[in-house]
């Protein structure tokens, strides 16, 4: 199979250490509030927490009852309440209300808020404004990184995307910086840092400052290079339908914190089963990066092999049988169980995805990426909206159309928007405003007024201000320049060529050979050139903000041959998709290096767009 471990792969650092660190600190914090206490946990922290410290561990440290934070009145009878939350104003306000309600009722309790990964001044301000600052104690649980797999680290901050790119709230920048600082302090410093995007630059700055403040540790680094990339550098990739197995599972069943719940249609029983999806799952690790059309064949081959392994029993003597039962049977059983689950999942996938609809959807996407038969695509999208196929999918196609075409013609924009609003309600006016702000869905302006202005201003003044002005302009109308980028970076292979998905020849295989993810292509190019030289045109089209810095540790020649030099850390600010991870794994295999992906959260088209909806309070 294509993506099994290859020889000579550099070993990856042991990230379970990060879990241990987080667990120890959490226990320490819980012990700061001695005695029995009830613990309230933010809903989106429950799964990550479970990876770090399960209920048994919590109970060992005198946690009595566990509750999910629901922003409703509580029914706890405990005298000590502990809240483990993300630093959100809303949650803090809810806690303040609880405390105040207790005060009115004359009830005395001790309250402790543990913010993770850090405390924000705004939250403390709320406590102060609500008059409960003295009644609660606050702490920080510096749980920055959750290792989801051997090569995936997640900050588990889905709101990073909306806060940073839509609301312009940069509060998470220092968090990302601290996460890098943590990695550095545990695994050694990096020799080179590359990045692109405003946020990437800020994260790097914040990280650098943290490094300067703290002590320098000189030790053998476990990574060579770091690449920071903003999600808004490449919106196209996360908007495409995913077709590699892991991505498809995420699109269809939603992988949550490294595990997925397969419903009855997959398990072919009446109950759902939760499965961890990572490299520990031998079956999954072999198919996760495969195009889904290959998966079924692989699985059936696997089933045959399994049968053969079982069949070994026949003709065994007692001794051999004993050994077989002791050594292999358990493994085989486990494999059997997983295999049947994945077969179920891919069956369910095939059922949904080989239908006419899906093929047409993919065809439309590919046309958009290639940039022909746009009219047909628009008609398809219109019908998609009219037939109420899917709220998110329609929006996704609209965005894809806008980005690839540098905005929609006024006429199309208005008619499609009107259609959409009729379908899903006027509240989406706000969604459209959000999408426009991010440059995801725009109306083409008459003439190229902005570029003209830009060049005029550029002639008048020539120093930093130009940069700032251009920044301002580009934020006014973010040009995606997708077509030009695609041409320059050869993202879309020439049509008409056969693409054998069984033997991928480049990263395009993750989108059925139709498109190489822009983000991954950038990484490939920069690593190849060891910087941005020769890519000036590309970075200009991506609104600049690129950088390449040589790290503090002088990279001595002696080290250059070590494994570490072949490990590259890629940090996605605003989320990354499984397709991108698969593409990077492929790239790593081609180049004899390994990529470790650090992301603020795992995303896909639905999550990305849902974050931008504004149809609910």
């Amino acid at each position, binding site marked *: 199979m294509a993506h099994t471990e290859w020889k000579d792969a550099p070993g990856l650092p042991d990230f379970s250490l990060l879990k241990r660190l987080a667990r120890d600190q959490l226990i320490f914090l819980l012990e700061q509030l001695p005695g029995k206490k009830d613990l309230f946990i933010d809903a989106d922290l429950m799964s990550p927490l479970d990876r770090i410290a399960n209920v048994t561990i919590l109970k060992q440290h005198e946690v009595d009852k566990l509750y999910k934070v629901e922003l409703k009145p509580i029914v706890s009878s405990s005298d000590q309440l502990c809240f483990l939350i993300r630093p959100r*104003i*809303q949650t803090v*306000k809810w806690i303040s209300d609880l405390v105040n309600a207790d005060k009115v009722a004359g009830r005395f309790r001790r309250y402790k808020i543990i913010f993770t990964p850090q405390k*924000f*001044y*705004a939250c403390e*301000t*709320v406590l102060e*404004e609500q008059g409960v600052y003295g009644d609660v104690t606050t702490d920080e649980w510096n749980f920055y990184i959750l290792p989801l797999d051997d090569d995936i680290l997640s900050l588990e901050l889905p709101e990073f995307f909306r*806060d940073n790119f839509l*609301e*312009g*709230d*940069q*509060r998470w*920048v*220092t968090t990302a910086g601290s996460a890098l600082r943590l990695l550095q302090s545990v695994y050694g410093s990096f020799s080179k840092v590359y990045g692109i995007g405003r946020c990437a630059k*800020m994260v790097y*700055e*914040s990280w650098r*400052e943290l490094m*300067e*403040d703290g002590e320098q540790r000189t030790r053998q680094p476990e990574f060579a290079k770091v690449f920071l990339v903003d999600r808004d550098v490449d919106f196209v990739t996360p908007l495409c339908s995913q077709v590699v197995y892991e991505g498809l599972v995420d699109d269809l069943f939603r992988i949550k914190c490294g595990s997925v719940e397969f419903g009855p249609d997959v398990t072919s029983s009446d109950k759902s089963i939760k499965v961890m999806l990572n490299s520990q799952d031998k079956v999954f690790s072999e198919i996760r990066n495969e195009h889904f059309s290959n998966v079924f064949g692989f699985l059936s081959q696997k089933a045959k092999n399994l049968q053969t392994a079982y069949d070994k029993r026949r003709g065994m003597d007692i001794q051999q049988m004993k050994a077989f039962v002791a050594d292999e049977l358990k493994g085989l059983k486990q494999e059997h169980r997983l295999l049947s689950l994945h077969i179920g999942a891919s069956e369910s996938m095939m059922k949904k995805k080989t239908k006419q609809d899906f093929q047409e959807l993919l065809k439309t996407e590919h046309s958009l990426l290639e940039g022909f038969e746009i009219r047909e695509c628009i008609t398809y999208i*219109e*019908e998609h909206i*009219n*037939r*109420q196929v899917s709220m998110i999918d329609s929006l996704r196609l609209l965005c894809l159309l806008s980005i690839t075409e540098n905005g929609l013609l006024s006429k199309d924009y*208005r008619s499609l*928007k*009107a*259609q959409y*609003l*009729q*379908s*899903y*309600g*006027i*509240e989406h*006016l*706000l969604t459209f*405003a959000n999408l426009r702000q991010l440059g995801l869905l725009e109306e083409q302006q008459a003439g190229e007024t902005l570029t003209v202005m830009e060049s005029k201003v550029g002639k008048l003044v020539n120093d930093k201000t130009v940069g700032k002005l251009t920044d301002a302009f580009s934020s006014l109308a973010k040009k995606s320049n997708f077509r030009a980028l695609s041409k320059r970076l050869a993202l879309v292979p020439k049509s008409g060529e056969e693409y054998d998905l069984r033997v991928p020849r480049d990263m395009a295989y993750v989108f059925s050979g139709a498109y190489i993810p822009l983000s991954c292509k950038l990484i490939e190019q920069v690593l190849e050139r060891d910087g941005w030289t020769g890519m000036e045109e590309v970075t200009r089209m991506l609104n600049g903000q690129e950088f390449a810095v040589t790290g503090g540790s002088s990279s001595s020649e002696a080290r250059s041959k070590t494994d570490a030099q072949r490990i590259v850390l890629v940090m996605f600010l605003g989320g990354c998709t499984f397709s991108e991870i698969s593409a990077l794994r492929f790239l790593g295999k081609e180049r004899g290096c390994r990529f470790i992906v650090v992301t603020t959260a795992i995303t896909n088209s639905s999550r990305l767009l849902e974050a931008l909806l*504004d149809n609910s*309070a």
Partner: protein
Amino acid sequence: AHLDLKKIELYEMGWNLKDGLRECLVAAAPYGGPIALLKGHYRRSPSARPQLEIYSSSGLPLASFPWKSGVVKQLGWTVSDDLLCVQEDGTVLVYDLWGGFKRHFSMGNEVSQSQVLETKIFHSPYGTGVAILTGALRFTLATNIDDIKLRRLPEVPGLQEAPSCWAVLTQDRQSKVLVANGSQLFILDNTACTPVTPPGLSPQASSIVHMCVSFSYKYLALLTDSGHVWMGTSNLKEKLSEVDTKIKTPPKQMAWCRRPKSQQPSAVVMWDGLLIVVGECKETIQYHLDDDSVLVPELDGVRIISGTHHELLQEVPGACEEIFKIASMAPGALLLEAHKEYEKESQKADEYLREIKEQSLLSEAVRQCVEAAGHEHEPETQKTLLRAASFGKCFLSNFPPEQFVSMCRDLRVLNAVRDYTVGIPLTHTQFKQMTVQVLIDRLVYRKLYPLAIEVCRYLKTPEYQGVSRVLKHWACYKVQQKEESDEVIAKAVSVKLADAAGISYSEIATKAYESGRTELAIKLLEFEPRSGEQVPLLLKMKKSPLALSKAIESGDTDLVYTVVMYLKNELNRGDFFMMLRNQPVALSLYKQFCKHQEQDTLKDLFNQDDDHEELGNFYVKASYKDQRLEARVALLQSAVDEYYKAKNDFSAKTTEDEMRLLRFQRKLEEEKDEQLVGFSLQDTMTTLLSVGLHKHAEQLYKDFRVPDKRFWWLKLKALAEKEDWEELEKFGKTKKSPIGYLPFVEVCIKHHNKYEAKKYVSKVTPEQKVKAHLAVGDMEGAAEAAIERRNESEISTVLSRCSATTDHLLMERLNRAKATAVKK
């Protein structure tokens, strides 16, 4: 036991005092600290003000100024070299080493009313304390002047006049007062006055006339009117010795002279012109004094300061005694001798060495020499001893070099600070007790910056605690120099501090600001690399716009928040908004905050910016939070107005449509009792059709100019859902379907009605015929259509659906047709 003392002259005093120390109030700080003199304070005439003078230990002037405040009862120094002047009224004035006034504090109402009778300033692990005996014969005490907690001690029974003598003790982590009233002795603590008796005090005494406590508070010496000195532990449990001085006049001063770990007690008593040292044995040692003098007790001896000289009296340290005792056979003495012979190139060196080595005491000898060197004041003697030690070391393998090396370093530093120009006569023992850190602090305090830096570099103190710290102090001093311009100072500071690690420019800037130089402070802040550090000071200096932009530069949102919240309280609303307007990052942060905390402020913000688009969005958002229809419509109307102002006709129109829709839904809800309000147009129509309200659905279709295609799809699905085939057929015939008839076929099939589906197959366009036939499972028809159209791919599609067993003939026909189609 015999007491060996040595008296070393530290300095010939650099000052020029006409009358010596007569009629002066004198205070000298321990650890070779500065000396303060208040001259002529006994003369109480307003014409001649007393003069306060401050000198280094070598008598070099540091400050001098006429005393203009009240009558001073006592001078004293704090542990950090600040001068305390206790006035008659209980006010304590604090001056720095340079005579600069720092602050003052009071010892309480009771003291100021009954006036100060006597005062003692004392040091303890908690800092510097002040004890006062008031005119009302009560004691008031503060243990730490930096954190004043006044304590009034209980009354002493039977005290009619000022006690004959008293002292402050520190015991059991508490400061207590020991008072003698005649022959009676009391200990006063917070709660009680306890009578005590020193064990074995000679009975002929009728009164205790003087007392003193050792530097460490462990020992106590009492002098009785019979001239006996009683020495014992300060807890009065043990008597160490008692000696008769044979002098019955009251002395001027008494002090302990014992060095730490000494075998015997020793105290110094001073009368006019006479100094007597008492120890364990009956004999006393007497010194003649030419001049009025002052005793300064130290950790390991007593300093004697007179009008002309400064001397140190101390017990001869063990190591020195061993080595320098006449005819000593101690290993150190032999080693020193051996080295002397070696220098003379005499073979006796070898004999001495052999003697030491035979007893295997060579390492002991080296140690003795090193230790003795530390106690010697003369550099020449130090060198001789160290050379001997070094010589001895050559014959030792594995002798750890640390002691020797650090002693050389220490002595070099000590010799430097003992220099006349610096005037800090520290002994090695004191230096070790004080630590390098404190010594550097003292040098810095004396503005001896270059020396301090040299010391740091020489002792290899980590830069952060050493050189950088000194430079910071230097800079803080520099910025207060009023005569130099901002530019010059800023430049000088930046040049000097450029490459020093861990310098906080913001601290220096704070100093500049505190001394009233705001512009300089701002200049200095520019050098601060961490913008986060600049913000608090900028806020303090009311440079809020700069603070805001620096905070934003730092990328630290918390910092931005801090500034924003500060500004919110500091500025009026208009100015606040204006400032935010120029700082998008801060503005968006504040908006985030408002979204949760202050919705109305958000509106005001948009209003101020004339951001009608955002205002429109704001109202739309508000509208769906409101449950009441009227309120919703009203909010939407506001949104419409704003959208028009924003020239966003599209949004305005859409919103108007929504208002219409809402009214329509409401009306229908009332009439037909169907849940409709809040549905999208599509959902409304679907609902209407599903309950058979076709007319109303049609009306919406027309009113809202719903595209035909959408309406057809919608109605098609709704009718199929209801399985209202009759109505569907009617609908299909109303006019030509804009979506064609294939959807009709597919929808019917989806609802498993092949019969109905077939009705529409004929209406399907030729391009879709094949698909339609296939959908209803009519292979013949599909084949027919495909062949007719001579379309190769369609023929193939049909072929793939044929089953080899049942459709044998059909397949043959198709294959033939395919062949011809390909040919063409």
